[in-house]
């Protein structure tokens, strides 16, 4: 970097003279830092999941003479659930590509498909939980089951709120169109949705697959 360029101040006044110490807060466009802020939220959410994974890792083998993962987990069902979430990730990606091209109708269709996959995921998960509870494998049964229901349930709760957010944004776009604020919101939900898929990788690997290995 040349000497002259290194003296470039942050701001320049009307006469082109450099201002080294701006007196007023410089203007930031609306939503300027939303994506960074939302990323910070996701990172803190990541810490919540890390703690739940740590709890599961510590007490996941304490069955209290109750059912173990091998008695309860149905891997084909988990594989189906995983594919639902993976498919919802790619369809959300297609919705974002349609959004960039300002194709509102196309985007709404992809968002609707994403929502359906999300609901399928939740339906399968609730069926699994109901089946386990029916067998007497309730959260109160053992430390393993408490940790399991809290970890997988927290992920499911995130997906539930993701679905609610998705429908909310579809209504917003339907009423107001693809205004910059709505695009920003859709980009936040995109991060949220793909982040949940990343967490699910950890869940199916360390809870379900490792559970069957024990």
């Amino acid at each position, binding site marked *: *970097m040349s000497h002259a*360029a*290194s*003296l*470039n*101040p*942050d701001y320049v006044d009307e006469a082109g003279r450099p201002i080294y110490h701006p007196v007023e807060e410089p203007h930031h*466009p609306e939503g*300027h830092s939303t*994506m*960074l802020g939302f*990323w*910070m939220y996701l*990172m803190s959410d*990541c*810490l919540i999941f*890390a*703690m739940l*994974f*740590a*709890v599961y*890792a*510590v007490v996941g083998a304490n069955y209290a003479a109750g059912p173990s993962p091998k008695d309860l987990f149905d*891997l*084909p069902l*988990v*594989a189906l659930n*995983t*594919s639902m979430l*993976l498919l919802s*990730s*790619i369809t959300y*990606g*297609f919705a*974002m*590509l349609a*959004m*960039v091209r300002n194709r509102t109708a196309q985007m709404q269709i992809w968002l609707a498909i994403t929502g359906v996959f999300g609901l399928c995921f939740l339906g399968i998960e609730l069926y699994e939980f109901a089946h386990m509870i029916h067998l007497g494998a309730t959260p109160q049964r053992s430390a393993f089951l408490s940790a399991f229901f809290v970890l997988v349930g927290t992920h499911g709760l995130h997906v539930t709120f993701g679905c609610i957010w998705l429908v909310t944004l579809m209504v917003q776009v339907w009423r107001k169109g693809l205004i*910059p604020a709505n695009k920003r919101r859709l*980009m936040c939900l995109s*991060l949220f949705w*793909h*982040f949940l*898929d*990343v967490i699910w*990788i*950890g869940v*199916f*690997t*360390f809870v379900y*697959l*490792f559970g*069957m*290995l*024990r």
Partner: protein
Amino acid sequence: MSAEAHNDHAVDHHHDDHHHGDDHDHGSFKTYMIGFLLSVVLTAIPFWLVMTEALAPQTTGLVITAFAVVQIIVHMVFFLHMNHKSEGGWNMLALIFTIVIVVIAVAGSVWVMYHLNTNMMPTHDMQTMG
């Protein structure tokens, strides 16, 4: 020296501002499909390994852990569009910080509790003693 570094950052920042509104990487159909196909493969192989019990449990454990790590990176790159430039590098910095905290907390918990369990083992033998 530090002033120069600061100015470098300021210049980059102005550069970003010009493109504001569409300076985020949205990926393309191709990158999404690459990410999706990699994810399908990286998901299918661990499930297949565990369901068919093709390898010894310990080997399977190591292999599926490796697949999970690779798949998380694939998702980060192809779906979350992570790179060292997004948000002027702050995204990556926050991610690295989070990973450090997560590794310390999870590995630390497992390590401490495993040793605690090992050291406490005799008192767990109440049933066999009775």
